[in-house]
Structure formats: C-alpha cells, structure tokens
C-alpha cells in the first residue's frame, strides 16, 4: 500500500497540453538547402545571415549524430520535421493591442499576459510562438535606458554589426551536431544588448510556445553585456501534448565583458510525454554557453528542468577573464518515463577564477536522471577554485540517478571541493507530516522544496514562487 501512495503522487496532468486554433504558415517537411533559403527568405534576412546558415548546414551534413549520452530514444528522422511554422496574422506590431487575440489568449492561459493593461509590471516579455516572436513588451522603455531587447530576427536588421560580432562566437556551428543544425535552421529567439555601465531596469524574459505538431523548435538567443553592466533574464517554455516526439535544439550564447554580470534563469516545462506510455514529449537538446570574457565578469545559470521526454544540456561557463565567476544552479526533475542527462562545464582559463555548481536531481516513476559535469582548470588558471554539490533524490523504487563528475586540473595552485548525497523520500517522512495534519501533496512539496531551496533562492523573486508551485504540480495528482 505504501508504494501506491507514492505512485499516486507522482502522477501529473500536464495542463499546458492544449493547442491553439490559429492559421499558420507551415513549411513542408524536409531539410535541404532550399528549406534553409526559404527560412531565410520568410524572415527577410540580410545576405550575411543566409551565408551563416548555409555554412552551418553544409558542415552539419558531414557530421554524425552523437550517441554518448545516458539516454535512449529511437533514431530521429531529420527529414520528417517541419522546420518553420508561423501564425499567419503576424505583422509589424507597434502596440500590444495589435497582436492576434487568439495568441494573446494563449499566452494568458500560460500565465503570460501580454496586453497593455495586464502585462507583468516588472518583467519585459518576448513571446515566441512556434518559429516567430509575436510580441515584445516594454521595448521602448528599455531602449530609453539603452537596453536593447528584441527578437533576434529583428536584431539582424537593426543591429547587424553586433550580431556579426557575437553570433557564433561562443557556440560556433562547428561545436557539435545540434549546434550546427541550429545554426542552419534557427527560428527565432531573443537578442539582448546592455551597453556599458548600465543596469537593466527590468527583468527580461522570453517565453517559448510550440504549437505546430511535428515541427522542430530551434531557438537562438544572444545576450551581450558590456563593461560593468547587469541583466537578469528568464526563459520559460511549454508545448502541447502530441503523440509524436518533437525536437527542440536551441543555442544560447552569453557574453560578459569586464565587470559585467548576466543572470540567466530557465523554467522549463515542455511536454514530457504521456505519463502512462511515455509516448510523445519534447527532446530538449540544447547548447548553452557563457563566455566570461572580461576581468571580474560573472555569469550564473539557474535552471529548473521539469518537462521534456529527454533533456540533454550542459549550460556552461568559459572563465577567460581573471577573477571571473561562473555559477550553475540546477533542479532537474524526471518522472514517469523521462530521461535527463544534464549538468555543466566550468572551464577555468583566467587566474583566480571561481565556479560554483549546485545540482539537485529528483527522480520519480521509471525515469533516469544523470548529472554530468566537467570542471577543467587549465595551466593558466592559477589560483582557480571550484565548489560542487551534487545531490540526488529518489522517489519510489523504479527510478534511477547517476552522476558522472569529471575533474581535470592542470595546475598546482587551484582548489576544488566536491560533495554528493543521495536521499530517498521515505514513507516514514511522509507519515510524519500526515500525522501532524498535513496532506500528502503538501508534505511532498515541502520535502522537495527543502531539498531544492539552495537552487530556488537563486531564481529572481518573481519566478521563485512559480518554480516552487511547478515542482509541486509535477508531483501532484491533480486534474488540469
């Protein structure tokens, strides 16, 4: 009977599984140079962008899909995907009220109000629906402060020099198979530029919503912070429930110059597949990397990964500037049939660089959760320091957790600390809560929050509450 109770509470109803009834332009399936040219032409891109894409595509064609992660999935047929889908009614928007009401309704249902009256007060939102950005709030207000926040598709026209300088500088198309694919077919994403000595007056966020079945989502985000500037950015994502798997291969590049700080948070809630059969769900294969170019620069990654059938990503920091700092805080939850192989890479190149890794993996159901981390300290990284804390929580006895920490130190003056724990939510702990009058759901949520609080406290306040609720929801037996 005790096993039943745990089972009951790792069942979830994905409430974002609806689709939006809207007319979309959908490019027919298949991947070849014509598709690339079509995508570039739909977006009206300048010549240099088409070249960027074609170069990446030709390189991709020479590559083999990597098979080393601790996840298994049937082979992906790259020809069986729509590489572009956009709502028909998109046009150049001057006011939020011109956005298609169906889209506004969709985002509102997802908790992202876009209309002038209801938009979130302190957060600017770029709303991306399938392959295009459909709305961006507070663009003007941010520009007044000097901060550029717009879809990448717009940035290639308005800020071509910045794009040419930085796009592909952190994740070149030669980096890996999915980075090459993304560079060839990327749809849209956000571009953020913060000029020197500027603190962004608001939180920035991008919300990705997949709607078209059998389409791929290839978002591309670039954030550049010049000297002594600061920005905090959040990425959210959901998708409808489809029976087929969908590929989400994104690339995020961050660049921080001297004294700059970028805080990048993700709350990922892609459809995870049918809880009973494991069918469907998003493949989340992502390359995220930050370059701490400048002295005393800082990049922090905070991620709450709760969805996707398969999560495969290692948000990383390359610590080039002396005394630069890289941080990675992660909660990765897998349930039912989900699989995750996630972690981070901290590459220390500059002197006295510091990195902190706090990873919390929670496995339930029949899921597999793997942490894979690399801490590399090059010869030049004298006085470098890393602290890693890697904790796993198992719920029930059919799931698994693995840890593969790699440590590569090439100088004698750096220091590392590594701690790892494994815990299981026990029946006795749950009964203790219940005997004090606290319901099972609240008990689970509290124990899990206690486990994750070191990560939750890194999230921007607005989103910390959401993340707490989301985690509770994911392990709850509730109906929509």
């Amino acid at each position, binding site marked *: 009977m005790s096993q039943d109770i745990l089972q009951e509470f790792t069942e979830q109803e994905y409430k974002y599984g609806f689709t939006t009834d809207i007319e979309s332009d959908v490019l027919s399936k298949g991947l070849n140079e014509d598709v690339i040219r079509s995508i570039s032409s739909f977006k009206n891109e300048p010549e240099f962008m088409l070249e960027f894409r074609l170069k990446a595509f030709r390189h991709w064609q020479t590559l083999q899909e990597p098979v080393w992660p601790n996840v298994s999935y049937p082979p992906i047929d790259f020809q069986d995907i729509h590489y572009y889908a956009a709502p028909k009614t998109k046009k150049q928007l001057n006011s939020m009220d011109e956005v298609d009401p169906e889209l506004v309704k969709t985002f509102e249902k997802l908790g992202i109000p876009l209309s002038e009256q209801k938009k979130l007060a302190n957060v600017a939102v770029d709303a991306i629906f399938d392959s295009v950005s459909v709305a961006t709030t507070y663009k003007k207000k941010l520009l007044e402060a000097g901060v550029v926040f717009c879809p990448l598709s717009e940035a290639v026209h308005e800020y071509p020099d910045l794009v040419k300088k930085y796009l592909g500088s952190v994740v070149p198309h030669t980096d890996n198979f999915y980075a090459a694919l993304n560079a060839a077919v990327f749809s849209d994403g956000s571009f953020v530029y913060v000029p020197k000595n500027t603190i962004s007056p608001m939180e920035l966020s991008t919300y990705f919503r997949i709607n078209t079945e059998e389409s791929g989502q290839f978002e591309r985000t670039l954030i550049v912070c010049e000297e002594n500037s600061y920005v905090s950015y959040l990425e959210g994502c959901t998708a409808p429930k489809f029976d087929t798997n969908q590929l989400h291969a994104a690339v995020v590049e961050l660049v921080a110059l001297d004294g700059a700080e970028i805080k990048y948070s993700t709350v990922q809630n892609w459809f995870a597949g049918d809880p009973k059969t494991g069918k469907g769900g998003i493949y989340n294969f992502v390359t995220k990397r930050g370059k701490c170019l400048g002295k005393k620069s800082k990049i922090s990654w905070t991620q709450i990964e709760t969805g996707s059938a398969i999560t495969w990503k290692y948000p990383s920091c390359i610590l080039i500037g002396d005394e630069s700092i890289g941080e990675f805080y992660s909660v990765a939850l897998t349930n039912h049939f989900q699989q995750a192989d996630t972690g981070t890479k901290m590459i220390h190149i500059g002197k006295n660089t510091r990195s902190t890794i706090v990873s919390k993996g929670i496995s339930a159901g029949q899921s597999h959760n793997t942490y894979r981390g690399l801490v590399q300290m090059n010869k030049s990284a004298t006085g470098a320091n890393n602290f890693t804390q890697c904790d796993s929580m198992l719920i029930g006895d059919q799931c698994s957790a693995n840890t593969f920490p790699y440590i590569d130190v090439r100088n004698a003056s750096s220091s590392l600390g590594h701690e790892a724990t494994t815990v299981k939510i026990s029946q006795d702990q749950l009964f203790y809560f*219940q*005997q004090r009058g606290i319901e099972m759901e609240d008990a689970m949520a509290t*124990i899990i929050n206690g486990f994750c609080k070191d990560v939750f406290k890194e999230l921007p306040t607005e989103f910390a509450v959401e993340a707490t609720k989301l985690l509770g929801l994911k392990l709850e037996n509730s109906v929509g």
Partner: protein
Amino acid sequence: MLSIQNIQASIDDNPILKGINLEVKPGEIHAIMGPNGSGKSTLSKIITGHPDYQVTGGDVLLEGESLLELDPYERALKGLFLAFQYPIEIPGVHNAGFLRMAYNAKRKYQGLEEVDPMEFEDIVKKKLKLVEMDEEFLERSVNHGFSGGEKKRNEILQMLVLDPKVAFLDETDSGLDIDALRIVSKAVNAFRKPTNAVVLVTHYQRLLNYIVPDFVHVVVDGRIVKSGDKNLAFELEEKGYDWLVDTVRG
C-alpha cells in the same frame, strides 16, 4: 472520547493485535505497558493510520466517529497526536516552518484564519519555555542533528502547539536522562486538562512516577491481559512480566 473496540491488526499478514478493547475518557491518563513484541507500539500506529499496518477487525471511534476510513492527516486534524518513538529527520525542512504549517492546517480545518510567521513566533515561544528548548531549535531542520532527548522534546513541543484531543506518547521515555525525563513529564502534566486525554506507551515504570496514570493496562501477545490503577505498574516493576505472560500462554 476514544473507543477502541476489539481492534485486530496485522503487518504483512502477520497478526499483531488480536482484539484490543479500551475506553479513554476525557481528562484521563492511560498507561500501556508490556514486554517487547507485545504490540503496544503497534496500537498507536494503527490508530493514527500508519500505512504499513492492516486493520483486520474491530473499530476505533473518536467522539463517536469511526476513524478507520479516514486518512492519517484527517485523523490528526480531528485531534489525534502521536509522539513517535523514533522521530524521523527531515533535512532541509525548517522546524518552525513545519510546525506553523501543521498549526495552520488545524486552524483551517477549524474554520479559523491562518497565522503568519510573526504571530506564530509568539505562540511557539511560549511553548518552547515549557520544554526548556532554546529558540535556535526552531531554526534548524526538523529533527536533523538533534540528540535523542532533543528529538523527544521536539515531539512534546509539537504536541503543545497542536493541542490534540488524544495524545499517544510512544515510549517517549526511552533514551531520556533524568533531567530530560523531568522536563518532558512537566510539560505533559501542563498539557493535561479535563477535555483531553493522554495514552502513554512505556516499557518501564519510571516515567509513571512523574506522569501518574489513572489506568495501567498490560498488553501481551496482542491483547490486554490485565488492567488496574497505578499500583499495577509497581507490581510489574517488582515481578516483571513473566507472571502475566505465563497466564496467557498457560
């Protein structure tokens, strides 16, 4: 108030309780004693609804209402409390936060407004004095890194804050030194009032010097074989359990 009617229970198909009958009236203190393996701890677990045990017969009524169909949290909200023999540790969960959560769950159940952390601090500080615990215990994780005595006192603190109708104290005295025993007993005696009841499960007579019971029951092989007043406890201290065990097993 609490009526235990011919309760039979098993764990993994092994029968442990073979028909326990007990009436606990408001204002009373009952002591349940017995040799190891007699089933005395099982009784409190059954009544509070621990999922490892199956009730195979009989009924338990609290103020006339049967408890057996209710979930453990519902039974708690109706006024049952169990001070665990081995209180479990819950790392990462704030002790005061946990207690406030339980307190507010009860308030909500009673149709009262929940209290915020500040209001709760006032409430809990008063009770802290009764168990002579330092405020810093509130800031730690529940039972995490607590000594045995501190864990037991934390149980009593929770009892004082939640103010149940019937409190089961499961071998609360085991592992306590004289001072801790004195403190716990004082707190339990302060908790007593005409509208609540306490059931003490204990191995040794010593606790009963401090918390004087109205009734003493001896459980052997899953049944109550003898009941008496506090003098029965002295008799057991002198003679041990054998004389009673023999009468049962013939």
